[in-house]
């Protein structure tokens, strides 16, 4: 297992090398244009961070050099001095020294003596004469430069396929581990139990390490968007300023892969439908240039990817009318939907908001592809919008797809798992809290009428006919309390009547292999500690089935 010191060291190295590259780049920019304030600010910040990190790691000299450089850049920023002459030479030299120090740390070597450089920096800061301003490289430095080229990178590139395989193996291991733990407890053998607990910890660490290896910065995807936005904006004849944030938020590479098209779609949608053209914007008293922000942030175990525009916002009534026109929803149902309910219709298949067909969005696909991609990952979609102000779509994604929290329920003496992401509440309802309306059983949950359906009926009803009209007489009279799991999907709540609740558990979902992979009611299967197979219910598919079959 990796020690924390080692982890810190690796993080430090990765970041320090990144800082070094950025420093070199910004320094060249500053040399070309000494008035480049942005480059100056970045240099100041990078030196500041390197200083703080180096000191935390105990690399005193590196911290000192960075500290003095920070001070120097602070002075330039404060216009106490200009970026000219010897200062330029010395800063380039210092960044080189920092680079050598960082590499030495990476190679586990001692860093060279920085005393002469520090003294010179001190003099420079105080405005004194330099002892020796070398414009040329010493032989030693030239040697160092030459040998640098022979260094092997500390980074190893691993094909994603190998990582997938590793993760699958770990998944297997975790399943067996849980079995061993159960068996050990049943046998009551103390030594075996102790070993099983140890195995538990180790495999847990292993699982997280493997998941950790697969994490990449969201930036690898976000950085592709400036070009996309530029192209779409040009085609649409719009002016767009793109802001990217959170590039270093970490996410599983495969999650990112699966979400690429969805994000592309949202961004295109934002430019072509969200943002208005310059004239419209100005008429509305807005700046001519529209703003599009793509940001990533972490929230607990989830990663939030947000596409936000300051455009016209969603016209809720127009969406409502169009959904009725397109047959996505009946007029009666549409009338009952609140704002968020109407927005959710945007992601229904067959709904495409564009009345005008453009090059960009007239491709016959709607935002439902976004929803499908998120569903496949077990994620969620949030919409926020204000008319005239703008719209924000937020994708709530799991950082990793290996382990899911799930609620285990029992039906006909079989366990089923329901991912926690889609579970809302569990309720034990007495008969008098369930009523029948229009052939549906209902209950009130937080001032909302939620339909109830026996899970058994959804799972086993054959054919495409609607479910039979339900009355309270259908409720099992032997049950004094009815066990209800409220699931939610796309702002829709549905109560599933189950036999009983078992427990909450982290599960490793295995996807179903052929030929059963076409049964969409199940998101996969998991093995419980007892070795028992347990089907994982797919709440979106269950909800869709219920909507299709409601009486």
């Amino acid at each position: 297992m990796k020690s924390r010191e080692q982890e810190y060291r690796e993080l430090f190295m990765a970041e320090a090398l990144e800082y070094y590259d950025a420093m070199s780049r910004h320094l060249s920019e500053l040399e070309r244009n000494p008035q480049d304030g942005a480059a100056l600010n970045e240099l100041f910040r990078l030196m500041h961070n390197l200083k703080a990190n180096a000191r935390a790691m105990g690399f005193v000299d590196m911290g000192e050099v960075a500290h003095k450089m920070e001070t120097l850049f602070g002075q330039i920023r404060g216009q106490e001095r200009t970026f000219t002459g010897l200062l330029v030479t010395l800063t380039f030299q210092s960044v080189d020294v920092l680079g050598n120090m960082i590499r030495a740390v990476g190679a586990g070597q001692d860093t060279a003596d920085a005393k002469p450089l520090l003294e010179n920096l001190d003099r420079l800061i105080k405005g004194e004469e330099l002892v020796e301003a070398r414009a040329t490289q010493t032989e030693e430095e030239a040697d160092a430069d030459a040998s640098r080229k022979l260094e092997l990178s500390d980074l190893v590139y691993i094909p994603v396929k190998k990582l997938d395989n590793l993760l699958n193996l770990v998944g297997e291991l975790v399943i067996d581990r849980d079995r061993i733990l159960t068996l050990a407890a049943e046998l009551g053998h103390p030594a075996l139990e102790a070993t099983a607990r140890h195995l538990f910890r180790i495999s847990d660490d292993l699982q997280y390490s493997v998941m950790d290896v697969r994490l990449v910065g969201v930036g690898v995807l976000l950085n592709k968007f400036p070009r996309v936005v530029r192209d779409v904006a040009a085609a649409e004849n719009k002016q767009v300023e793109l802001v990217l944030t959170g590039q270093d938020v970490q996410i599983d590479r495969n999650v990112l892969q699966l979400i690429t098209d969805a994000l592309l779609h949202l961004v295109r949608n934002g430019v072509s439908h969200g943002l208005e053209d310059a004239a419209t914007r100005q008429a509305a008293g807005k700046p001519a240039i529209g703003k599009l922000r793509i940001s990533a942030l972490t929230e607990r175990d989830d990663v939030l990817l947000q596409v936000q525009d300051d455009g016209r916002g969603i016209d809720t009534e127009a969406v409502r009318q169009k959904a009725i026109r397109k047959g996505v929803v009946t007029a009666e149902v549409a009338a009952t939907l609140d704002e968020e309910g109407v927005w959710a219709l945007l992601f229904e298949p067959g709904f495409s908001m564009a009345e005008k067909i453009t090059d960009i969005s007239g491709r016959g696909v709607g935002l439902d592809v976004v929803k499908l991609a998120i569903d496949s990952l077990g994620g969620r979609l949030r919409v926020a919008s204000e008319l005239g102000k703008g719209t924000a779509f937020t994708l709530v994604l799991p950082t990793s797809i290996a382990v899911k929290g799930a609620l285990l329920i029992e039906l006909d003496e079989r366990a089923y798992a329901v991912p926690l992401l889609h579970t809302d509440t569990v309720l034990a309802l007495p008969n008098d809290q369930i009523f029948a309306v229009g052939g549906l059983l209902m209950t009130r949950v937080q001032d909302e009428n939620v339909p109830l359906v026996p899970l058994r009926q959804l799972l086993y009803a054959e054919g495409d006919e609607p479910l039979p009209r339900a009355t309270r007489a259908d409720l099992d009279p032997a049950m004094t309390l009815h066990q209800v799991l409220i699931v939610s999907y796309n702002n829709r709540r549905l109560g599933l009547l189950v036999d009983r609740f078992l427990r909450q558990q982290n599960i490793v979902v295995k996807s179903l292999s052929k030929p059963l992979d076409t049964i969409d009611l199940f998101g996969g299967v998991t093995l419980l500690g007892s070795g028992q197979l347990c089907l994982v219910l797919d709440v979106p598919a269950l909800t869709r089935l219920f909507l299709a079959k409601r009486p």
Partner: protein
Amino acid sequence: MADSSAARPAAPSGRAAPAAPEAVVQLIVFRLGDEDYGIRIEQVKEVTITPEVVRMPKTPPFIKGIANLRGDIIAIVDLEERFQLRPAGRPVPDFSYTLAVEAPDYTLGLMVREVPRPVTLPVSLIEPAPEFVQDSGQRDKYLEGIAKLPDGGVIIVLDMPKLLTPAEIMRLPGRADEAASKSTKAAPDTAAASQKP
């Protein structure tokens, strides 16, 4: 398919009986209904006592469910029910065997009621199924041929690659091509027990 292996006398299966001058084929033979069926041994991954099977809703009745076979989650198919070969009134046995057969990218379990046995026989004994038979019925569509044994027994050799495409496995008996061949179909009682479109 039968003649392609016959044309290769040095095929691996020939090694099992080096004395025989003629190409032989090894089959795993099991009973479905009241007949003997065979699958080429190289298509069978293993034979095992049927593990615990979990019924999977929304699948045809001949899919008995899923089972955990050494970490592989596989579908278990009851071929008797799939081919409508089970005599009326005969129950599904409590205890059965499963042949794990390999398709190109998945494994499938075939549930059989009696312990399967290996049989080695000369390739020449397998008569290719006639073309017209292949078009007509359910089971006949997946036949490689029929082996007539010297003792008078008959083994129906199944063409696994043909049966193992997911679309074929999931197909309900008499569903997709029933418009073409329904008139000649028998055994309406068992068909009625399965799902109707």
